[in-house]
């Protein structure tokens, strides 16, 4: 078990999103859950909270989150991640899915 939090600079979210929050994935073995919420402060940062069952990969997590904040306008969001040993290749996909749901809705 490892737990950490950090904020990353990111362009502000569009003023209107389809939903106030969005969820992607589930907490289950080999999977992870990403919750993305509006209303994080400040509006030019993405605030991240990670809880993972597999310790020792903090650098990779931070790099993935930093890249995401850089490529997507996610400022003013709060990201909460619950990981149960998901393969590394799944992390960015879940972030992208949650972001897509937030901006464009579930359809």
């Amino acid at each position, binding site marked *: 078990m490892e737990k950490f939090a950090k904020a990353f600079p990111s362009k502000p979210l569009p003023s209107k999103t389809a939903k106030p929050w969005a969820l*992607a994935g589930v907490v289950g073995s080999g999977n992870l859950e990403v919750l993305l919420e509006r209303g994080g402060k400040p509006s030019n940062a993405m605030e991240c909270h990670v809880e993972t069952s597999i310790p020792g990969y903090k*650098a*990779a997590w931070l*790099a*993935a989150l930093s*890249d995401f904040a*850089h*490529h997507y306008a996610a400022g003013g969001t709060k990201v909460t991640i619950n990981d149960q040993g998901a*393969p*590394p*290749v*799944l*992390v*960015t*996909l879940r972030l*992208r*899915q949650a972001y*897509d*749901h937030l901006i*464009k809705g*579930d359809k």
Partner: protein
Amino acid sequence: MITAKTAKRRENKTERIARVGKLARGKFVAPEKVPEVLRRIVEPGDILCLEGDNQKQADFLANQLATLGKKDLRDIHLVMSCITLPAHIELFRKGMIKQVDFCYAGPQGTAVADLVKAKKFPVGAIHTYNELFARFYVDLTPRVALVAAAQADRKGNLYLAANTEDTPAVVEPTAFSDGIVFAQVNEIVDRIPHIDIPADQVDFIVQAPYPMHLQALFTRDPAAITEVQVLMAMVALRGIYEKYEVQSLNHGVGFNTAAIELLLPTYGERLGLKGKICKHWVVNPLPTMIPAIETGWVESVFAFGGEVGMERYTAARSDVFFTGRDGGFHSNRPMGQLAGLYGIDMFIGASLQIDINGNSSTVSKNRITGYGGAPNMGCQPTGRRHPSKSWLKAGAEANPGPGTSPGRKLVVQMVETFQAGRVPTFVEELDAHEPSIRKALHGVTPVMIYGDDVTHIVTEEGIANLAACRSVAERQAAIRAVAGYTPVGLKRKKRETEDLRARGIVQLPEDVGVRPSEASRSLLATQDIKGLVRWSNGLYDPPSQFVDW
């Protein structure tokens, strides 16, 4: 006038056959007499071809050969495309082999690596299929060929069935150079469906007590396709297939490309790509292609070999597959490889390791697998002269200079950044550089696909267009950009990635119009093997290990 040399070679063949004498009745040999016949027809120093293809194996003849020892047979120069069976390894353990020239050793990769370490594996070279078949006609012409066929008639004509594979390429150079061809067959019948090898090219035949071994190599269960693979398939379809209007192609045998096949009737249909892409295939009869064939995407499929369980389906779809007058599926490895080398717009496959220059390899320190045919397809054939839309478009991106080809084959590597067990796919240096392996291969590093030949790398992070890179440094930056959070990926610089993305050299899923939230297994035309059977209208008979109902 017969020259002295020809006469000598022909006389020698006559002598060998005379030595067999009454052990054979005409061409036909009883199974229990096979070891003694082999002892009499093979001479020390011979180039011996033991047919071991990617799929079918002359396993009875291999097992009989392995019952002999060094006192019976020695100094054999073994030539074979695939080292597959324990009996093949046994010949090395017994010290009967003075040199081996081959292509692939997948199933025995660990045993081969052990033999190399023990200095009991004297490699001439590891070849691609086309190269070895070519050398059968140049300096590796077999003196004796031990081959496998489905049936023989009483005259000795052979029928090869769906797995035609390498047999014609082995038999022809042997038979037309006064060599000896010895075939094992599953059965001897009065009338065969069609003649693949005429009787006058065959010297001996044995009806094996058990049917030849066939590897089911190309069956991928849709149930094992992951969401990440669906995302990558969507990205590849939009960013490469759609962009270049790929008409003709080869798919590797992984789950990544199986996902693409299963997205054609769903996602591809929605994108309006039917009739515009993926019409002509050079590929084994992949069960995961059934939904695309049934929905009318596919005009033709030519294959290197067959696939277990696809016989009734291919016979029923003779408008798509190459089949004989009897409906029987026909394959041919050298012709398939030739088609894959020169005839197609795109090769797309996966790999175990890719280095920062885009070189890929399936070799690890404890496993030597060889090449098979992937490098024949995953390369830029500079002898190509005919254009296609895709070839010219990719060529223009590569900015050809004077004295270079105007076109490029699309050579695509599609990999997840990590393998199972968090092992990174992207590495600074390939395991294939291991000095003991290089030494055994006379200084050659076993690279499957050279970085120079690769046009695109697709990962779950996005696409890197290597052909559009203008320098080695730029290519390395593009590879790091899609290498995810592997040690190679973590070294990328944000500014470089941003620059490459602005120029379209690196593309994220969104950049090619893919919505990641759509990446779901429900997008696949079917989610399991049973669904493939349903799509085939009950014509596909999956091998038992894939049947759980």
